């Protein structure tokens, strides 16, 4: 009895406190960034205005003048949406083939794809830059979309493969008997059955693309530069404008935080895929 009482005491008080503690810890940087975005650049570095200050919206109102925010935001949308679409376009048929028509080397191919995620990005940085420059694609949307798609394909294929594996093979074979061709199998049977899995994969890929900084910062200058580049580019030599920087950072992460908030359920499902069966 004592043990039961103890464990229920933990689940009544301890667990919520722990959960809130961890949650607040993760949330704090975002909170601080949002708070700072309402301070003037001068207030932002004064200890006496750490918590108490006169809020200002100037940082947001001047964002377009100061940083050309919308151009970067547009680039982010273009590259994240296109890369997500392209990733799905390739990964759905790929995962379908591997799940329903596996060959002897399917497992090896899957492992090999995963192994590319273990390669340090820095190892291929310079070859990538030289290659991009020599074929004239440096700082273009095509380059960014291609790179974002390529780095996300392994995870997308793995996720979809796991979802597709749960669809009974008989159903696909029944489709074959009923006169469906390969494209029909994907459209009529696979996509409707794995819709939840495809949606969470798309969402995760989109978030990864939006947040990607390593490559977008290094492979762009102006034309294809995304919000990651904008934030990175604000390490101004004359000192940091913390207020402005916080405003632009808030505006950069804002859309993805809102999106994530609305899609929590799918995200958790997507991130823990295969963990619970």
């Amino acid at each position: 009895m004592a043990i039961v009482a103890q464990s229920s005491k933990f689940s009544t008080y301890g667990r919520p406190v722990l959960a809130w503690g961890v949650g607040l810890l993760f949330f704090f940087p975002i909170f601080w960034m949002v708070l700072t975005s309402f301070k003037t650049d001068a207030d932002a570095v004064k200890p006496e205005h750490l918590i108490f200050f006169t809020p200002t919206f100037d940082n947001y109102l001047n964002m377009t003048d100061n940083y050309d925010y919308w151009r970067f935001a547009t680039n982010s949308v273009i590259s994240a949406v296109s890369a997500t679409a392209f990733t799905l376009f390739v990964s759905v048929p790929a995962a379908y083939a591997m799940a329903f028509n596996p060959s002897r080397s399917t497992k090896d191919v899957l492992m090999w794809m995963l192994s590319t995620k273990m390669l340090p990005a820095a190892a291929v940085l310079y070859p990538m830059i030289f290659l991009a420059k020599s074929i004239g694609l440096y700082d273009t949307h095509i380059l960014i979309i291609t790179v974002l798609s390529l780095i996300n394909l392994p995870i997308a294929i793995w996720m979809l493969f796991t979802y597709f594996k749960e669809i009974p093979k008989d159903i696909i074979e029944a489709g074959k008997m009923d006169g469906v061709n390969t494209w029909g199998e994907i459209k009529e049977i696979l996509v409707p059955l794995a819709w939840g899995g495809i949606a969470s994969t798309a969402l995760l890929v989109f978030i990864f693309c939006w947040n990607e900084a390593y490559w977008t910062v290094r492979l762009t200058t102006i034309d294809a530069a995304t919000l990651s580049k904008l934030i990175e580019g604000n390490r101004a030599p004359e000192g940091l404008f913390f207020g402005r920087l916080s405003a632009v950072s808030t505006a950069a992460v804002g859309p993805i935080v809102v999106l994530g908030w609305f899609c929590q359920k799918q995200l958790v499902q997507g991130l823990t895929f295969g963990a619970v069966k």
Partner: protein
Amino acid sequence: MGRIVLDQVSKKFGDVEVIPPLDLTIEDGEFAVFVGPSGCGKSTLLRMIAGLEDLTSGNIEIDSEVVTEVPPSKRGLAMVFQSYALYPHMTVRKNIGFPLRMEKMAPDEIDKRVEAAAQSLNLIDYLDRKPGQLSGGQRQRVAIGRAIVRDPSAFLFDEPLSNLDAALRVGMRLEISEMHERMQTTMIYVTHDQVEAMTMANKIVVLQAGVIEQVGSPLDLYHKPQNVFVAGFIGSPKMNIFSGSEAEKHGAHTIGIRPEHTDVSMTDGTWEGRVGVAEHLGSDTFIHVHDTGLTDMITVRITGDISVKHGDKIYLTPQADQIHKFDAKGQRIA
């Protein structure tokens, strides 16, 4: 029309030959049952006919047309799967109509055919439900409906009743048999259950390790099993089979006698033994007899009730004209 001919058909998975080259003809309108223990290759053979499995060698003809390279949907066959394989995201109506929609049939015509199929399968009240809201028996009916609407030249059934409970299984067995009587369409039915095979088939194909042991009508197989395997596989309870001096007396290496072809007496008979277990079914009594000196256990089947109990001494007499004789290779001696 649905005459199916397998010509030297074989299948290898990697280096393992699951079906050595075999020939088989299924006539139009026949109800053929592939029966055998699990892993004997019966489902693989069915899937090869369906086109879901490639052939390693040989040819398959449907109505004199070679279909070896033809994709499943173009063979004019319909298949019912063990797991039902319904589309969970579609209603019963959509499930049944799906193959017709894939043929690009007019929606009015699809509706008409779906309703007709649903009517004949007692599914008319369930047309707008999803498969998840149906019982096992209803799901199996939907799967059959999806096969019927296509008006196929042959139906393929892959152990369609194994997921149903015993009572439902008997009911569905009758329904499928009646469907065959009504439609007179070729049906190929795979099962490991010899009772299903005996009750449903015109022609039984007994398989073991990918090899056809015997093809024949149910009663052919019952009365004249070609070898020891078929003798032991067909019939329930199993035939008593043993070798030794008793077999040699009959001029055979091995003899077999069915439980129902053995007479029982408490006073005298050919073989003496002790009752192990007596199973009283009311209509019949199965007596399992030990210590006969012939084999571990001999089963006899007596019509009606007989009062014997564990440990009783009992005498058995085989009906002389019902003894099956086999040579050293296990083949029937005429």
